[in-house]
């Protein structure tokens, strides 16, 4: 165990970053994020933007599923709502970038609350399947509400402008996405040091006793749905600005599985878990790409092997983590941290 240090006050004891080492790591991370766009080539910059979007979305899902215990397989549909909101606003109204993103978050939050309504009665995996149902219904709306969504062919967007600067390249987008995602992650971290976050966790652990302890269940479950879908909506909005086209098939069901897998691999119910999970799950398929490239001189048909191998690896990662490290990567990181804290005293 870490040797306790005398704390200045309870407020510093309640702070997010409590030690100098933690501050130092944060500083290093910030520097790396600042330097990245100048060092990365187009492909990696593209991935960096994709990672920020996925981190934002995974963090949102983690709030709902990891912290509140409401398993959702509707994350892709929620992102789609956000993406469509942005697309429609950009196409028909022309409101500014940040406004559109916030509107996407807000509208998705409303949709999230509607989807969450059954959650008071419907629990566990039954609820998960209900969210699948909701996402198929949303998909139906996207396809058939022709006048708004332009049906199956979807909507193409003009690039956004941010205070006059056009956000056309990934380099530009990076500078906008990273701060947005950082703020979202910070918000989530904050949430879980207040009464609202605690209420969520209590609901996850045992909802009926939470109710007797003064937590109105429906209100908090819906709040969790709202916050989580707010995150998903914003992530979806960023997605729309990133790819600049939104179709009903932009957010297939497998995307929902992807995000669930990301938080599980990362670690459910820890902020860090959502982040590392999203980064990891986004990058592993790409790393496989390089692996296959190296292997291709030696393995015939390496190119055709890539996708099935990726499918296998995607599945195997989920299975592997759950079987061998059910707490996810966050737990591994914690263990490494503990090891270094104890390091001089242990072999």
């Amino acid at each position, binding site marked *: 165990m870490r040797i306790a240090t005398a704390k200045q006050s*309870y*407020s510093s*004891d*309640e702070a997010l970053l409590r030690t100098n080492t933690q501050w130092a790591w944060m500083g290093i991370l910030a520097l790396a994020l600042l330097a990245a766009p100048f060092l990365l080539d187009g492909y990696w910059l593209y991935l960096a933007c994709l990672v920020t979007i996925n981190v934002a979305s995974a963090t949102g899902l983690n709030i709902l599923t990891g912290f509140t215990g409401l398993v959702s397989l509707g994350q892709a549909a929620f992102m789609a709502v956000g993406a469509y909101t942005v697309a429609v606003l950009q196409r028909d109204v022309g409101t500014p970038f940040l406004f559109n993103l916030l509107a996407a978050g807000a509208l998705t939050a409303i949709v999230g609350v509607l989807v969450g309504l059954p959650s008071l009665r419907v629990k566990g995996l039954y609820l998960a399947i209900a969210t699948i149902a909701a996402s198929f219904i949303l998909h139906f709306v996207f396809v058939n509400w022709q006048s708004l969504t332009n049906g199956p062919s979807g909507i193409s967007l003009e690039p956004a402008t941010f205070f006059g600067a056009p956000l056309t390249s990934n380099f530009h987008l990076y500078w906008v996405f990273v701060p947005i995602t950082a703020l979202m992650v910070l*918000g*989530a971290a*904050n*949430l879980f*040091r*207040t*009464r*609202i*976050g*605690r*209420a969520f*966790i*209590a609901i*996850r*652990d*045992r909802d*009926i*006793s*939470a*109710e*007797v*302890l*003064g*937590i*109105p269940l429906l209100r908090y479950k819906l*709040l969790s749905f*709202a*916050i989580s879908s707010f995150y998903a909506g914003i992530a979806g909005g960023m997605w729309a600005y990133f790819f600049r086209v939104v179709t009903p098939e932009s957010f297939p069901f497998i995307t929902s599985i992807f995000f669930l897998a990301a938080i599980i691999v990362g670690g459910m*119910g820890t902020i860090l878990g959502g982040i590392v999970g999203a980064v990891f799950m986004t990058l592993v398929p790409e790393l496989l790409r390089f692996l296959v490239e190296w292997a291709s001189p030696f393995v015939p048909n390496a190119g055709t092997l890539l996708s099935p191998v990726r499918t296998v690896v995607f599945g195997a990662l989920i299975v592997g983590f759950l079987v061998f490290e059910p707490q996810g990567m966050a737990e591994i990181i914690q263990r490494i941290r503990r090891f270094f804290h104890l390091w001089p005293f242990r072999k």
Partner: protein
Amino acid sequence: MNEAPREAGRLEVQGLSLSFGGLKALRDVSFAVEAGSITALIGPNGAGKTSMFNCISGFYRPQQGRILFDGENVTARHAPARAKLGFARTFQNIALFRGMTVLDNIKLGRHAHMKSNALQALAYWGAARREEIALREEIEKRIIDFLEINHIRHMPVGSLPYGLQKRVELARALAMKPRILLLDEPVAGMNREETEDMARFILDVKEEWGTTILMVEHDMGMVMDISDHVVVLNFGQVIAQGLPSEVQADPRVVEAYLGSGDPAALMKRINETQEAA
């Protein structure tokens, strides 16, 4: 912040009936718990004690009857609203939140009395920040020290021994700013020594905080020693109530619930069976 404890409340149950399908768990139960007293609710297994607690805390809706708190009818209120009014309880099967530390479990108790909203929480700003820091300070000073759980405050509750878990449950209930404390079998599964500790805490809560306490317990030694008033349920009905000494002497209570209450007698009986065999 360091608020003074809230004033103790008086609970009155009038004509409460509760049934599950055909099973009548409670039938026309009436009793009162005086402000600032320790009242024990005892009775055979399945008599309806926990069901009674569930009705009082708002988890079950009784089919008939009223629950009055300081004269106000609270029967129609939902559980969270009652928690806010000052109903705090512990559970027969420990219901701590295993994903949280001891400290967070205790903090959770205060939920209903805090005001910060989601926006403030996301920003950890304004009311959210102030409330959290004040709450931490109060819990440290008034609850953690009081229940002697300093050493475990950052531990996850899941790994604690049973006795300490029960204590953390009590701590959480105290954080709820209780005006009445409902304790469901607070010393079940504890040995003599631990029971003594718990008894001491319960007495201290009553004396220092002045909180009303209603307790279900099968440990007659403790019940008779520390309670001011005892209510006996059997088959969902009140069969006796009064001072501990009165109840203990009531033949119906002895027959339905207490038995000989004497290990020596038990030993004798056992030895008789042995000889018979």
